């Protein structure tokens, strides 16, 4: 007793073929979209790799690119099969390839699910890499003369300007780090010497932030230096001053940017999910096969998802796998029988 049988006449078959063809070609377009999203994500990760200590994992974008290409191929093939399905001569040459194709679709679906899952889960990895990377970026901000780090200042400044953030968690991260290089400090000056001697590590620390922390939306020209000293500036109270510099930390800003990107990409991946296509193709092929009179296109036929019920099909599968195992034991290199679907 077939699983979920449906009766088909010529009209229904034609409609099914046309609908499937449309769905397949839409999926090709979504596949192209996935491919370009993968490339976009890869480029974004590369752009910000300095913020992540050059340590970020490119697994997700590479997987997306692969999945996008595969989706294009698989769906284009499916579309071609649907296109030829109503012409018995053309369809005959596709018939033998259908079973492996449906198996491939199954495997591809699993890959899609895995990709979507990774998109959602890898956000944690991104968060951790960002935390570590930003801490180091702030530490190396002043090293504009060290090879390998000379662009850290520029990158961090541009990041803070673009993402409207300051420091790792907030602007106070800048107070704990010497962000002015010794090259520009007058070591003979008493003030400088005091500051350098005032802490264990001999760092020139101050309660100031770089200019890239400034908020252009502040009505007042930006106050970068002596931030915690109310009397250093006219009419200034550092506890209630909100608009002067960005209050958000860069880790949070960058993370929300990447996480929203990854969530939307994950959702897009799920759109490509092929189960509807597979079911439709299965119905179409079975409907075409069971035509009682192949010469008369107008005749009715049955289509189904599984030839026997679900339990029986699984039973058959298991039996086949067992025989497969046994065959391998007795005779090596035996041909594997096709798994019934």
């Amino acid at each position, binding site marked *: 007793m077939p699983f979920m049988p449906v009766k088909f006449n010529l009209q229904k078959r034609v409609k099914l073929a046309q609908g499937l063809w449309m769905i397949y070609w839409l999926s090709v377009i979504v596949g192209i979209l996935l491919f370009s999203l993968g490339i976009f994500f890869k480029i974004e990760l590369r752009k910000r790799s300095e913020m992540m200590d050059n340590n970020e994992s490119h697994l997700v974008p590479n997987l997306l690119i692969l999945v996008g290409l595969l989706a294009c191929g698989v769906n284009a093939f499916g579309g071609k099969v649907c296109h030829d399905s109503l012409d018995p001569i053309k369809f005959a040459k596709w018939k033998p390839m259908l079973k492996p194709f449906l198996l491939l679709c199954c495997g591809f679906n699993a890959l899609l699910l895995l990709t979507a899952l990774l998109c959602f889960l890898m956000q944690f990895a991104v968060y951790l890499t960002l935390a570590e990377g930003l801490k180091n970026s702030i530490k190396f901000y002043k090293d504009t003369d060290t090879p390998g780090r000379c662009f850290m200042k520029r990158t961090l400044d541009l990041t803070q300007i673009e993402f409207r953030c300051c420091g790792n968690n907030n602007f106070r991260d800048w107070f704990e780090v010497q962000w002015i290089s010794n090259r520009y400090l007058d070591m003979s000056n008493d003030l400088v010497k005091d500051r350098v001697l005032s802490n264990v590590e001999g760092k020139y620390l101050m309660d100031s932030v770089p*200019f*890239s922390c*400034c908020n252009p939306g502040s009505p007042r020209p*930006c106050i970068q230096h002596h931030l915690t000293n109310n009397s250093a500036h*006219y*009419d200034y109270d550092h506890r209630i001053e909100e608009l002067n510099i960005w209050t958000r930390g860069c880790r949070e800003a960058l993370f929300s940017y990447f996480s929203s990107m990854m969530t939307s990409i994950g959702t897009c991946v799920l759109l490509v999910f092929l189960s509807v296509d597979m079911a439709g193709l299965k119905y179409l092929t079975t409907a075409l096969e069971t035509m009682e009179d192949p010469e008369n296109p107008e005749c009715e036929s049955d289509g189904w998802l599984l030839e026997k019920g679900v339990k029986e099909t699984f039973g058959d599968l298991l039996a086949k796998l067992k025989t497969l195992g046994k065959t391998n034991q007795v005779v090596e290199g035996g041909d594997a029988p096709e798994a019934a679907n």
Partner: protein
Amino acid sequence: MALLKIKFTQQRRVHLAQGLWLLSWMAVMWGGVIFCLGVYLKTELLRRAEVMDNTEIHVVPNILMMVGLASIGTNWVASRVCQDSLDPTRFPRWKVPLLAWFAQLLYLCPLSLYCQVGLRNGIRFYKDTDVPGRCFQKETIDRLQMEFRCCGNNNFKDWFEVQWVSNRYLDFTSKDVKDRIRSNVDNRYLLDGVPFSCCNPTSPRPCLRYHLTDNNAHFNYDYQSEELNLYSRGCRQALTDYYMELMNSTGPGVLSVILIQSLTMGLRYLQTAVETAMVLEDPEGDSEGYLLEKGVKETIEDLKINALTMLKFGQVDPNAAEGSSEVADAEKDEKDAPPSPAS
């Protein structure tokens, strides 16, 4: 003696129709792209409207949008014509619209010239700001300087001549403030400093923005030779460069629309070939297609006669209906021709 006759079999006619159909749909999409480009340019100009000196520059995006829409419309008609061309029952209804279609080439030529004129005009940007310290203007200028990597009108020294710190944040009891205010006629608080948005992130040194002309105020600093500290470009130059680049890139786009209109020739061949086939009462057989039914001179003569007749009608009886639309459309375009006798 027709102009540039070509023989067409049914197969060739079908191929021509299919090719033209594809080409006209590509032209529709390209028209859509041009339209979107016009919309984008317009939004960019509107975003910076506060610093723009005039509104004449809006002519360019307006033209782009018009050309885009016109291209979409006319090429859609062309694709419909191609689709119907091989069906003898549906083709005749396109006769009149086709003649109007051939006339639309007329407007494209002056439009392209107009675009070029718009590009070559000296564009004046960046209205001189008067009194900074106003909330919106500070943010606008700051964002402008950061985005376009520029400082001041012509260079950063423009900031020395303007009070860019609002009086709200000046301590008038301080001696330094009082000195500065009294030091100039207009009682403005001028200083040799710039806003933070002038700072150049690529500088290896943390940004210096106050006491810029005083070498002693900073360690290892020479005002004359310091290059990377602030942006050296003026915002007028930066904006001009940006918009000129944007508009120069739209120029080729518009010209390519005109190139695609070359499908006009193909359409003319298709029209004449199909009509000849219908006249010979053998829609499946061979026929000839041409650009003009008679030679160039004879066509112009015919046009003159038609135009004069129309004018005579106009003189004698101004209330009479105008001549047929075919006559009205056949004016300057040499590709226009009187309709075939089958009409």
